[in-house]
């Protein structure tokens, strides 16, 4: 049976390159690692086959090396499972779960640091340094790579994937179901009038369709003008386009709003101030949309409150 760290419904994404297999064939230490990986998966399977039953052996230990992976692990894992999370997870300007993250050793995402923790499974992002991911896989560590979430459905899927990889699939299923139910409740309660809105990110960027922000805006009953104009994912937004689209709602989002930076200075542009005076403004701190989490749905309430007449 092929080893897979993904639920059967999704294609396996745990990286096992050719180099990994070669390395494993030749080194006893890697075989030992592999044995522990097998144990980790066996635990996961055991838990799936006996829902509700207490796990017979300890849960696999987890190291996470990406901000979004960190927060999913902090959401899903049992505290004693977590060996380390990345340093950004402990920064309240970046992370929704900073206080929780501060309880664990922090890492800067290099292979040598992680080796000291000896994790059963490593959770990374699809854009985490590819060299680090490849090296960890070569050393026999199962690496789960998470695609960035571009919708609430993606959040549910990633919750399930991480939960499965860390041996708590029933927990992931429950949180995912709860998330989808909340999504339905928000959609059912949204107001009839959908105000035209534009997201303004520091540096003159905005978000278009196929993004988590767009999905949540639609859910909250707000029209994303940039997405309607065909912008895909993310892109830049000129002040002129912004003025011409006559938005009723400006959605400001960003990091460290109090720190002065060239990017933040764009938020103080006189033209933007004029538009904001004419309409309404919502402020969504960047962590809500930077990573897909159950907490991301809270931003729908922020939008609705700002848009309410």
């Amino acid at each position, binding site marked *: 049976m092929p080893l897979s760290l993904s639920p059967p419904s999704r294609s396996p994404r745990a990286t096992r390159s050719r*180099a990994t297999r070669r390395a494993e064939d030749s080194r006893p230490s890697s075989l030992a690692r592999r044995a522990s990986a097998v144990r980790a998966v066996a635990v996961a399977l055991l838990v799936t086959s006996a829902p509700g039953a207490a796990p017979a052996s300890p849960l696999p230990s987890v190291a996470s090396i990406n901000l979004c992976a960190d927060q999913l692990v902090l959401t899903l894992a049992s505290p004693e499972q977590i060996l*380390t999370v990345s340093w950004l997870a402990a920064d309240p300007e970046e992370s929704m779960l900073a206080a929780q993250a501060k309880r664990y050793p922090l890492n800067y995402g290099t292979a*040598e640091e992680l*080796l000291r923790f000896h994790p059963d499974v490593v959770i990374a992002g699809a*854009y985490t*340094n*590819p060299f680090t991911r*490849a*090296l960890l896989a070569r050393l026999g560590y199962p690496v789960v790579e998470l695609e960035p979430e571009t919708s609430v459905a993606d959040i549910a899927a990633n919750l399930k994937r991480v939960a499965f990889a860390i041996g708590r699939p029933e927990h992931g299923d429950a949180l995912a179901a709860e998330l989808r139910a909340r999504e339905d409740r928000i959609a059912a309660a949204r107001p009839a009038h959908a105000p035209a809105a534009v997201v303004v990110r520091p540096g003159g960027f905005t978000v278009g369709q196929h993004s988590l922000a767009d999905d949540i805006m639609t859910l909250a009953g707000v029209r994303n003008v940039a997405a309607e104009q065909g912008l895909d*994912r993310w892109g830049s937004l000129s002040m002129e386009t912004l003025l011409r689209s006559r938005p009723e709602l400006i959605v400001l989002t960003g990091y460290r709003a109090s720190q002065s930076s060239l990017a933040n200075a764009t938020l103080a542009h006189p033209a933007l101030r004029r538009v904001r005076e004419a309409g309404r403004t919502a402020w969504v701190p960047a962590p809500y949309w930077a990573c897909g989490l159950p907490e991301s749905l809270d931003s729908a309430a922020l939008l609705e409150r700002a848009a309410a007449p």
Partner: protein
Amino acid sequence: MTELARVATPASREPRGAWHLSGALAVLALAAAATSLVIGRSSSGPTFGFGGPEIASIVLTEIRLPRTLLALLVGGTLGLCGAALQGLLRNPLAEPGLLGASSGAAFGAVLVFYFGLAGADSLALPAGAVVGSLAALAALYALAGKRGDFLTIVLAGIAINAFAAALTSLALNFAPSPYAALEILFWMLGSLADRSLVHVALALPLMLPGWLLVISAARGLDALTLGEETAASLGFDARRTQWLVIGGTALAVGGAVAVTGVVGFVGLVVPHLLRGRVGHHPSRLLVPSFFGGAALTAVADIAIRLMPPGPELKLGVVTALLGAPFFLNLIVRARPASAA
């Protein structure tokens, strides 16, 4: 005539100076490499030793050895190619980046990031870089191959560089996510973090023939210092020398950029630092520049790991931080002499 005599018998004047210097720099590079093997980095800053008996052998052979080898190989490549190009183009500003090989390689790698292939297979990234580097060389040959004079080559190189840089910016602009854009940006600063022996095995087959091509042009480079016509009368084919250096540089630098990203400043600064000690024969500068580049890069990579806790600094940043003061010191000291 004295110039001619020197070219005809290159070993006539202080022949041992360059070899002594090479030996000293090789010892320095090896010492840096040995130090590099025992220095690590944890979340709380630099560490010494191998982090406990159960992981020591993996840390040493799988993490620090590839990193150290690549520092030596990449630094050596940049130093050697920088020295050869400065000799060939008789221009002190020449460096491996000038011909478009690095920026072509960087663009090839960035395309791999852009299409999200970097995660699928760890070799996709270096392979993309090698293709980019060779494409830049092919473009250079197509643009300047017929005329073949130095000025055309330099100008074509600058144009290819600018074009590849523009395409890279374009990819950044249309990057699928801000995270991809960040990875692309980091690639442009170079790093040795978390490379494995697979990457050494990938770069070396490109670097070795590259080095041999460049070194085989050594005598021709000396002859060219007298001008193309004089060199031709001595039996050296200027065009052949030129393409040996350019082809060798594209191969070796393409291999280097493929595994580390763009590491700046080494190829420019190392030949300058050493030129005063070996005299003005390009051939005598080649081997010392190889070891000098290797030493500088290995020391820079040690410095990265000695920094206070935080995410790792990028290699290109530190080579510039270390190299620039030496370079400025050299310029300031050289000034009165040239003014006199």
